[in-house]
């Protein structure tokens, strides 16, 4: 079982194959694990498609599987994994975060309260939100 962490959450995939710095996933499992879908034009998320470099397609695609780690690095995003290759962190690039902040649209998130009920920032649209942080430490 492989655990994949992305901005979209945590997914467990039993068909992933880790090899060194590569993480191969059957194309069918890609949307659930990463939010990206393999299409003829490349890898797509919503309206956006990223073509795979023609010169090195085999680096990204082989036998119906996609090298998600290589694709993530192609996007300029951090890729980390534990030594056993069973937990992969597919992070956000500084430019992803910076671009989002520069639109001034408050990035949405969903978190539980102390009783486990989920709240999204967007649930409070229509109100002025004073979003503040604290901690016990």
């Amino acid at each position, binding site marked *: 079982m492989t655990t994949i962490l992305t901005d979209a959450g945590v997914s467990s995939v039993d068909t992933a194959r880790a090899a060194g710095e590569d993480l191969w996933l059957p194309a069918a499992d890609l949307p659930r694990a990463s939010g990206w879908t393999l299409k003829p034009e490349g890898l797509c998320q919503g309206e956006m498609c990223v073509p795979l470099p023609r010169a090195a397609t085999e680096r990204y695609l082989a036998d119906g599987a996609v090298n998600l780690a290589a694709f993530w690095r192609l996007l300029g995003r951090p890729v980390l994994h534990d030594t056993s290759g069973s937990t992969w962190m597919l992070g956000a690039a500084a430019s992803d975060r910076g671009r989002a902040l520069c639109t001034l649209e408050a990035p949405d998130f969903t978190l539980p309260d102390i009783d486990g009920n989920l709240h999204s920032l967007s649930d409070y649209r229509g109100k002025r939100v004073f979003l*503040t942080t604290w901690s016990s430490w």
Partner: protein
Amino acid sequence: MWQALYAELAQEDFIVIAVAEESRGAETAREWIELARPTYPVLIDREHHVADLYNMVNVPQAVWIDEQGRIVRPSETAGSHDAWRSRDRASGTLPESALALAAQAKRTYVEAVRDWAQHGARSRHAFTPEQARAHLALPDDKVALANAHFRLGYHLRAAGNVTEGDVHLQLAADLRPDSWNIYRQAMNLRELGPTGLAADDDFFARVDALGSGRYYPPPDLEGFPTELGFAPRE
């Protein structure tokens, strides 16, 4: 801290959302929440996702978001400031001179929040989009990598791989040494001290290393103490 203001402003289209940057989770936060008895949502952010999205370095920091979901004041310190550095480390108390500054800082900030809660876009403390962009602190590649290490470290630890988890938490703290969120949370995960406060000699050495440099840019708010670095706009 915000409950009295929130209760007072119950008639306004205004809400407080308090996010606990708390990797130990709800049970660690519970006693604090039960003490403060807030009527606004308090959310538990074990992975520090909000700090990542909004590029925060410590608690408390705050963002003002208007009715359309747009940022009108980006992340800034909301109650903490460099006056705290003169705190007596044994007793936790502030000297007289710093107490006055801390009180002025708090009063100025709370008044600004109240003014915005009541007047929205008409409040002089709500930035225009140009001003809001100018006040954004944007992450660089090291910060993005630090956040990835932090999240992986948290998950490995939670899955029982404490040794490897701590390696990633340490890498995160090394990549972003200015983040008390990362450094102190990692310390708190390694060991919960008797007070629960993650402040040991190494932490204070890091604070001392700031020298005369400021940890925080002060909030850009008229009336904020100039001793804490506030410089009135031209």
